[in-house]
């Protein structure tokens, strides 16, 4: 099976979705998805860069990309599909700019990471080892979603895979670093949720008052967690 043939479907009467089988090599395909998103922005198709651009939003997901036309766009979906297909085919495997790496200092364990012990119990690792493994890998931001600035990170050490809590917490504080099954994430805003909180960062992942740069991370960035503090008693 070629990994390069996406399925194109309709999200609604003015939005297309291109998606890849989730069995393919996600980081590889994601780099192409993000480059496609970038090209579409560059070609003035996006209304953010060109007031007459027919696209309101270009939204990457893990292994997929949604293109939403503005309600009054004159471009029919059929033409958008053709443009998209040709853009995808013309997409070269040229080396992209080296990705940006963002370091995120984390206070692990203690009151900042109330579920660290549970992750240790489930994985059979020592709390120290959970922390070290979490901070050892470099993660890739596949996309942002769920909350403004919430990164979908790829690259969690499979040994840290821990199922979500049976009873979700009513409030996960902003800045929480958490594990949910085979994923890890950082909460920019407080939210209810079942992920296991292992630490906390002081960094602001979303700042509505900074229009130039509302989110700390962007799709395609690399993330490294550094150990600012580790409490595991």
């Amino acid at each position, binding site marked *: 099976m070629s990994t390069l043939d996406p399925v194109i*479907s*309709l*999200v*609604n*009467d*003015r*939005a297309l*979705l291109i*998606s890849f089988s*989730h069995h393919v090599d996600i980081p590889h395909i994601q780099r192409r998805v993000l480059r496609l*998103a970038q090209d579409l922005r560059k070609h003035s198709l*996006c*209304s*953010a860069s060109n007031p007459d651009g027919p696209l*309101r*939003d*270009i*939204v*990457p*997901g*893990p*292994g*997929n990309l*949604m293109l*939403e036309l503005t*309600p*009054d766009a004159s471009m*029919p*979906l059929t033409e958008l599909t053709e443009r998209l297909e040709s853009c995808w085919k013309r997409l070269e495997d040229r080396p992209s700019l080296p990705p940006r790496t963002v370091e995120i200092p984390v206070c692990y364990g203690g009151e900042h990471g109330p579920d660290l012990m549970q992750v240790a119990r489930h994985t059979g690792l020592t709390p120290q080892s959970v922390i070290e493994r979490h901070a050892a890998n470099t993660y890739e931001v596949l*996309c*942002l*979603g*769920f*909350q*403004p*600035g*919430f990164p*979908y990170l790829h690259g969690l050490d499979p040994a840290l895979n821990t199922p979500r809590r049976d009873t979700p917490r009513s409030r996960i504080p902003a800045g929480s670093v958490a594990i949910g099954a085979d994923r890890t994430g950082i909460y*920019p*805003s407080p*939210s209810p949720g079942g992920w296991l909180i292992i630490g906390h960062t002081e960094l602001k992942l*979303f700042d*509505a*008052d900074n*229009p130039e740069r*509302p*989110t700390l991370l*962007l*799709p395609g960035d690399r993330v490294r967690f550094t150990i600012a503090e580790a409490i595991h008693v």
Partner: protein
Amino acid sequence: MFEVLRCGPLTTVQDQGRHGLRHLGVGQSGCLDPVAAAQANLLLGNARQDAVLEVLHFPLLLACHSDCDIALSGDDTDARLIDQHRQPIPEGRLLPGFVHRVRQGQLLLLPGRRQPRTYAVLGMAGGIDVPEILGSRSTDLNNRFGGLEGRPVQSGDRIHVSHHADAGRRLLDGIRSIGPTGRVRAIPGPEFERFTPQARMDLWQTRWTVGRQCNRMGLRLSGMPLQGDVGGGMPSSAVLPGVIQVPPDGRPIILANDAQTTGGYPRIASIITADLWQLAYLGPGSRIRLEQVSVEEAQTANREWQRYWSILNLSASGEGA
């Protein structure tokens, strides 16, 4: 300036929504019925995208501290002016679709009506004065920014208007609300085929009831649960207002303006663009049927809908009706 004396939950400052930032995870917010907001603004000579008060629960009682022109749109809420002793003011009945002058010292009361949902928009000449954040004055309740400090309006709040009101720009005497048609059309979504033939048929044939979980994020439908999403887990992917997701319990959720930008449940269908505004008028207990249309029909309906929008804009700008 108005002072809020009494208001229900989910009274928020909204405009035409925050667009173009979904790739950062920033949702749309904005009035559930953006046409109602645009109508109130255009009547008042405001810009179409000025901020208004969206009211989903009643009563709403405001004290007017300086003369101000207002316009209501959406449902008729039996709105009226009363005096400081809470006595009716002659000819104080305020119909939606017209401009009314509210004098200093008068109280503005929106009692609301007994029905599953009453939806009203209150526009003020000059537009509500709150800072524009990420391109919009809408309240993002989930992430607590925009509007009035990112939260619903509450008793004791003061609502200021901008001073760019220009009564000379008013060209319309009144606008008739279109009112919900009760017809909510939808097209199959990306995961439609993952459902059993029975579930696909049930989606269109069930007379759904809107459940108690009904807010600006979405509307939960109750009825016979849809059986058999046979596809198993799926990766997260972008969602939009109007998308109908089916979680494992089989009870569909219609996403609304405050929905998050990505979702992991199969999308069985999507409300068409031209009917999205009707979600504003659905509340717990409302009955709806989803009517399947083709993509072509949805696009034709959208073109007609956009034509309605441009006529509305043109008549307000004096370039002909």
